[in-house]
């Protein structure tokens, strides 16, 4: 028979492995629920059904498309192939402007309308979110 110590250690290792497996499972599980996918206007056009999950839409703010009222801002995001209307109320970053890159986070109403809950601010005027760059290069 194995000694008590060996058994204890074996038990400890088993416990360790189970906890490890369990925590990794938990982490990956909640990743699945909580990640936000990025999509370009063209990708949204190709969707077969409109998801209820939060997504990010990125592209350029179309020229002459910003309309502002006291509660809401409306604008159009384009990737020069397709475009999508965005309605937003919230903080507008300083670098948000027509003809510049933008990433909006929120929910799709349908394939034409996007309700944004957040517009992401960037630090650098030349900086373009990698997703936008990729989306623009694909065209």
């Amino acid at each position, binding site marked *: 028979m194995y000694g008590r110590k060996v058994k204890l250690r074996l038990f400890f290792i088993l416990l360790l492995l189970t906890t490890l497996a369990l925590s990794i499972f938990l982490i990956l599980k909640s990743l699945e629920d909580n*990640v936000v996918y990025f999509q370009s206007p063209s990708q949204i056009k190709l969707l077969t059904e409109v998801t209820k999950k939060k997504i990010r839409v990125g592209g350029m703010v179309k020229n002459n498309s910003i309309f502002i*009222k006291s509660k809401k801002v409306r604008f159009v995001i384009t990737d020069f192939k397709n475009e999508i209307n965005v309605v937003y109320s919230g903080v507008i970053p300083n670098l948000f402007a027509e003809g510049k890159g933008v990433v909006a986070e929120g929910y799709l109403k349908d394939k034409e309308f996007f309700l944004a809950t957040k517009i992401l601010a960037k630090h650098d005027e030349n900086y373009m979110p990698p997703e936008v760059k990729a989306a623009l290069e694909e065209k």
Partner: protein
Amino acid sequence: MASLIGSYSLIFGLGCSVLIIFFSVKDFNKSGNLNSKVISFTFLQLFFIVVSFFGLILSFVNSDFSNETVFNHSHTTKPLFYKITGTWGNHEGSLLLWLLVLTLFIFLFLLSSKKEPKKYRILTLLFQQVIIFGFFIFVIKTSNPFSYIFPIPTEGLGLNPILQDPALAIHPPILYLGYVGSSIIFSSVLAATTLNYITKQWAKDIKKWILVSWIFLTLGILLGSIWAYYELGWGGFWFWDPVENVSLMPWLALTTLLHCILVLEKRLILTSWVIILSIATFTLSMCGTFLVRSGILNSVHTFANDPERGLFILIFLFCLIFLSFFVFFFFHKIENRNTSNFFWLSKETSILINNWFMMYFLSVVLIGTIYPIFLEVISSEKISVGPPFYNKLIIPFLIPFLFAIAIGPKLNWIKSDFKNKKYLLLFLIVSLILSIFIVKNFKIDFLLNTILITSAFFLFFVTLRDLIVRQFTNLSQSVAHFGFSLLILSILLNNIFSTEIITNLKIGETFQSEKLKINFESLEHADKQNYKSLVGKFSIESFDGKVVVLNPELRIYNQPNIITSEADIKTNLLTDKFITMNIVHNQDYFNIRYQTKPYMVWIWISVLLISCGGLISFLRKKYEK
């Protein structure tokens, strides 16, 4: 001229590295004291890098645009203070700063370790020189701060205005002192493992270095957080953004290491933990530099970057990890003599539990940070991981963790029991009543929040009692733990009580809700040294008739042409009133965000208290109980 001297100094510094390695290898098996040449060359290396660094500062001050780094990141109209701090506000300069701190720390180590065995000192120096050598090659090859451009431009491109800020001016040096401080821990742990020199005395000496690095890292993160709070204008202090996460990860590893080294110092157990954590801390610090500088992170803080550099750091990182694992597996002898006498209710068990919790938090942050990169590489799907992910995974584990922090320090070494601990139950009941009282007024998840706030209050009371009852025994721990409990409590209450109003207003308009009136009275223009300033005047009238005037500012910088908004914050001990104003392109409307953030100042104070705890421990000569 200054650039030229700096550039040559850098190469001489590299030469020193080679000489130091040569002499220390030669000296390794000789008996007697450490060869004085080795110390002289280490000093000389430090000297060259200091010269090189001042060369760069001077080029920035003189706006020497023949230097590419200066051209890219400076401008003649920039105030002198930001010309100087601009030196390390960019990639090249910040790496030079890394080198400076690397060499400074190894020099200090050699000076302060005279009592240690010679072989240990030499080996530490050698490991450190490997790192220094790697960074030299990296700086000279991929990011030389002294590159020459011709024809010489007459004007520079300017520093990103968002970096022109006092907190961010000193944030990188302090953070780097923490990051790079972990290199000494890394080197000496590897040296001690190789020589099988892990003793209680060694633990005591290395603890000082861990504390130094930990204090600076804590302060560095605090500064970054304060900056984000008032400069980014979102009114938050932590966004779970990848760039923030990479500074949190070494902090978690280092904090765990700090607790482990206490056990090692006292009982000579947990050596494997200490070794692994030392390696992890430094690797995570380097990873931080890699992830931030390579630009593969999709972060709100992303600055300009270059993928080639990332590749170099990545290769270098793998070499170091390989080296350290080699040392760990081949030289580390696992002793069995002490592992068996762990009693389930003892201080060492509680520290071990603390370790596991910390490792869990670390892996959550790690996975949340690198999973998007990983996924993009394998499936080209682009995702981002936000606060809900972290909240969901961290909060449930935070509750037992907080209870463990409250109870753990109460236990004795080796074996303990729960006698004379009745007051704990009293605290628990009081905390529960308090938190029910708070939570019931809000429409939030009752059960989870009650338990969470109960545990935070419980820890708060227990640590507060310790601070008062214990007085000067174990002061550092009492202060740091009290700081931590205050931090958690202020964050939780801040989250629950914060309010926010976002609206678009024209000049002269008023926003009205049931609770308050925001009046946009006027807008004043002014020309400053390198920007135009627009200061708005807002009077905020609350329902009880109190009026507060806030003056948020918009700055339109000339070079580069960027607009930044400066929040106006009225702080008192109970609450922060926070307002930002953003311009909307070509429109008359201004986007106004008004927030009240209760107990904000306590978040900063509590982090200061935490680092004070470290400082007290560092300054204490006598061993604490």
